[in-house]
């Protein structure tokens, strides 16, 4: 177990029960894995001004959400850099749930509260109210369907529903996740005995699908293969939306939101650095924080996340480099223990789940 933002979290579950990062990762790609993601935070905005409040603090366009729909977005500083990335769920006419990162919970809540005072809405910090369990992988739908009366096949990706799960009524079920697979995230009341019972029932019901519990290690390698951003790595208070390559989640055409003027300026000024995906060409594994060098050995950027990719079976990394080094096929070097090791810029996402036929 490791300390993770105040939570005791397993990096991986024991090999003795068939786990380990690679096994856990492969289970999610090919079958199903479950994650205890109770450390994630939750902020609810409700009331007549809730939509306006969400629109003001979120870069995506919440007005496009139907009740029961979710979207990826981010909270931005006036500079156009990241407070955090979030998933905005529209639960009711005037009822929004923002799912936020563990390490930024308190900061996010204060920021949301302070920046929505002018709107007629209630802001609640519900992080400690839920045990959140993610059920990820192509067989996740079959597994969860055994335990709920909700018709999961009717729930599209990035939509939510409610149903009875493991005998608990009115449970929020989102078809979302952080593994680049199909999957669900369920929000159950944060009662220890209940949570443990549900966790064990999922494991038991999932035996026929080869379900395994997955830790932080697999969560990281899965999201890295899918090139999904992690706060403090690909996104932070020094990186703006354009640099992070999250343009498609930022709706400049919607009415004003915090960060928009700065992003307009940044766009006019042009991109200086950008996030790229690289694959190691020579032997070696890039790790978070390693320097990126040009051919002559000068430092030009840095690795934000790097790891062996268990499903793709190559060593991959995300890195910030000057835009002139960002073209697909460009070669760069990663400084690994004093040596410049060759790597090549390749398209991201590294992994895309196959489309259903």
């Amino acid at each position, binding site marked *: 177990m490791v300390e993770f933002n105040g939570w005791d979290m397993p*990096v*991986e579950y024991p*090999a003795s029960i068939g786990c*380990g*990062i690679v096994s856990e990762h492969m289970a999610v790609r090919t079958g199903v894995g479950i994650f205890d993601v109770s450390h994630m935070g939750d902020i609810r905005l409700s009331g007549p001004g809730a939509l306006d409040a969400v629109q003001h603090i979120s870069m995506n366009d919440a007005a496009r959400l139907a009740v029961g729909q979710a979207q990826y977005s981010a909270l931005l500083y006036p500079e156009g850099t990241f407070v955090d990335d979030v998933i905005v769920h529209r639960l009711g006419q005037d009822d929004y749930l923002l799912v936020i990162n563990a390490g930024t919970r308190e900061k996010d809540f204060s920021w949301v509260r302070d920046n929505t005072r002018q709107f007629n809405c209630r802001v609640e910090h519900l992080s400690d109210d839920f045990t959140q369990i993610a059920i990820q992988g192509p067989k996740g739908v079959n597994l969860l369907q055994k335990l709920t009366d909700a018709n999961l096949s009717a729930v599209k990706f990035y939509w939510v529903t409610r149903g009875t799960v493991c005998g608990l009524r009115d449970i929020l079920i989102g078809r979302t996740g952080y593994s680049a697979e199909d999957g669900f995230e369920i929000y159950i009341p944060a009662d220890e005995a209940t949570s443990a019972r549900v966790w064990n029932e999922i494991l038991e019901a999932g035996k026929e699908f080869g379900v395994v519990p997955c830790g932080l*290690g697999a969560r990281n390698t899965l999201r890295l293969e899918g090139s999904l951003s992690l706060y403090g790595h690909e996104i932070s208070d020094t990186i703006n939306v354009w640099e992070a390559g999250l343009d498609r989640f930022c709706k400049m055409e919607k009415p004003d939101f915090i960060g928009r003027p700065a992003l307009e300026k940044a766009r006019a000024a042009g991109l200086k650095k950008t996030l790229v995906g690289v694959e190691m060409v020579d032997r070696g*594994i890039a*790790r978070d924080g390693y320097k990126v060098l040009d051919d002559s050995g000068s430092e030009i950027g840095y690795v934000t996340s790097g790891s*062996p990719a268990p499903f793709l079976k190559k060593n991959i990394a995300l890195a910030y480099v000057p835009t002139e080094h960002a073209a697909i096929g460009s070669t760069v070097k990663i400084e690994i*223990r004093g040596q410049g090791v060759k790597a090549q810029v390749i398209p991201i996402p590294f992994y895309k789940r196959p489309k259903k036929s």
Partner: protein
Amino acid sequence: MTYPTDRKYTKEHEWITADGTIGITHYAQESLGDIVFVDMPKVGTEITAGKTFGTVESVKAVSDLYAPASGTVTEVNGALATAPEQVNKDAHGSWMVKIKLKDPNELNPLLSASDYEKFAGEEAGH
């Protein structure tokens, strides 16, 4: 896990035999998880007791290898370059380098199998 008694152990989780064969312990491989890369010195390299002489990487982390004793590398286990996962399967059978010991007395203060087992047990409990 019972640790073989034909060798000595370090608190950095390497093992070494009396003839200078070096590897990492079962506890070390278990803590590292899936090992994907072993970076070892070339034959002829001088290594120094207590100093790093290579690295072992798992999916989750990179970890230095510390020399249990000083000496000159005489042989490197090339099989680990293509099959590093062997270390996970059999840490005590997967040697990494062999060295010509500079001073066999350097092995004296190292841990016995039973002392190491106790030490690793305490580490795991943390």
